[in-house]
């Protein structure tokens, strides 16, 4: 495709992936290199495309529920959340207050789990082996808590149209509070081992700077956007569920480099814990599921619902045609837009920096391909 560039004597192409340790899944990045300098990284997608959108258009809307968890398996509950809320908005289904609270609590726990895993994976990209196992140690507690109520550990299918699948009990509340206490104690370890580490800072500071203008141009969302200094969070800017009832901050960075994106995620974990705490304190009583017709008819016309997933804005767009099968289902996933800035970000940098940048963007490849 770029035949003419082969004329340059020092330039060559390097295939990074699809089986490269730091592409986190089956992503291929074709790098045009000059020595160790990356001139033009081009991501090649589609290795794990599973036609989730088409599946959503070929079966009644209940049948798509398990699929939602399999796009971004690291942070599956916001994906559940977006889809059930979409159908609820479309079909006008009321959700009991307690169910919304439970959705928020579990989604935020899932977000913390996702950020913990990201932290470890990013440090693994930078060559530190230990933080990922400390992250897993903490994450495992969240998975245990969520497993007890949702029944699964990773690909949850917990929310239902008009509520949630199972009510939470005192054991859940107790375990969650214990976990919040535990994670707050563990911040110190992460700070000493990672955040303050001079090698880490040197690898992340001033690397891969995304300017606010560039972030908007590419449609970057989530912690990556907030790292560039734009306080845009769906939970605040386009509130859904019961998020307006909670008091939390939207952490932002200043420069938009890898270190800022790291700090934003670390601070977001604390904010998520705050939301969970408040939700547990004010958890209302009542039913967790409202009556929903067995066959949900999707009226003609379109409908959109956006949620804040761990990686950014996730939005479902649906067009109904009066049957229970969606006529069109479009899913806007955050990682796809976040990855799209890579060719511009990765121009003229060193290969290790490219690895650092890709790690800091927090890409989940099955989500990009869906």
């Amino acid at each position, binding site marked *: 495709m770029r035949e003419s560039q082969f004329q340059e004597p020092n330039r060559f192409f390097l295939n990074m992936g699809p089986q490269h340790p730091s592409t986190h899944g089956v992503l291929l990045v074709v790098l045009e290199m000059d020595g160790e300098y990356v001139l033009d990284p081009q991501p090649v997608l589609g290795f794990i495309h599973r036609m989730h959108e088409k599946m959503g258009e070929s079966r009644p809307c*209940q049948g798509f*529920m*398990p699929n939602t968890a399999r796009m971004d398996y690291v942070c599956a509950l916001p994906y559940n959340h977006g889809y059930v809320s979409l159908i609820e908005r479309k079909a006008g289904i009321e959700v009991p207050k307690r169910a919304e609270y439970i959705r928020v609590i579990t989604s935020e726990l899932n977000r913390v789990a996702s950020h913990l895993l990201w932290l470890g994976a990013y440090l693994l990209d930078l060559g530190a082996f230990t933080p990922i196992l400390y992250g897993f140690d903490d994450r495992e507690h969240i998975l245990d808590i969520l497993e007890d109520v949702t029944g*699964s550990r990773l690909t949850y*299918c917990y929310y239902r149209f008009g509520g949630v699948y199972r009510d939470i009990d005192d054991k859940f509340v107790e375990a969650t509070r214990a976990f919040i206490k535990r994670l707050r104690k563990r911040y110190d370890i992460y700070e000493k081992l990672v955040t303050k580490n001079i090698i880490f800072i040197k690898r992340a500071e001033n690397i891969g700077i995304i300017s606010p203008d560039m972030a908007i141009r590419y449609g970057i969302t989530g912690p990556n956007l907030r790292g560039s200094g734009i306080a845009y969070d769906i939970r605040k800017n386009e509130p859904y569920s019961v998020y307006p009832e909670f008091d939390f901050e939207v952490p932002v960075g200043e420069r938009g480099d890898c270190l800022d994106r790291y700090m934003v995620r670390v601070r977001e974990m604390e904010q998520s814990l705050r939301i969970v705490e408040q939700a547990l304190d004010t958890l209302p009583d009542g039913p967790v599921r409202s009556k929903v017709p*067995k066959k949900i008819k999707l009226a003609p016309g379109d409908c959109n619902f956006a949620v804040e997933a761990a990686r950014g804005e996730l939005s479902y767009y649906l067009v109904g045609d009066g049957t229970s099968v969606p006529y069109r289902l479009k899913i806007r996933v955050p990682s796809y837009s976040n990855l799209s800035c890579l060719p511009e970000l990765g121009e003229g940098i060193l290969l290790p920096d490219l690895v650092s940048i890709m790690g800091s963007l927090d890409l989940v490849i099955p989500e990009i391909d869906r």
Partner: protein
Amino acid sequence: MKRYFSDLFVGGKSLVDGLVVTLKALCQPMVTVQYPREEIDITPNFRGHIDLVLDPEKNTFRCIACGMCERSCPSECIQIKGKKVEGKKKKTLSLFTLDFTKCSLCGTCVEICPTQALEFSNEYNLAAFSREAFHYDILKRLEERII
């Protein structure tokens, strides 16, 4: 020049701090278990593959072979057949199979069942050499439990 020395001292201290963290962890007890030798208790709410509920009163299944689960399954992994038995009005269950390789554990079948005849099993140590090993005959599994 100031940056030169501050990098050295602050950086050096951060490296020592990091080493203290790992040295402490070295002396702390392990958090993992030796999996095949030890196992962690799994929560009773765990959703494994489906099983038929054993009705303690009737000492058999509750299933009425209505086929709701078969129709509701998004992955079409359940197969049910009922047959007429002499002396009974309704059909009785004669075949209930689950293709677990396709199942995504969404739980729709358990929820939709009008007689609460399905439950989740608690089995998670699932491994086999062939695909066919996961084509479960749920009815047979229940019959084994009756005895």
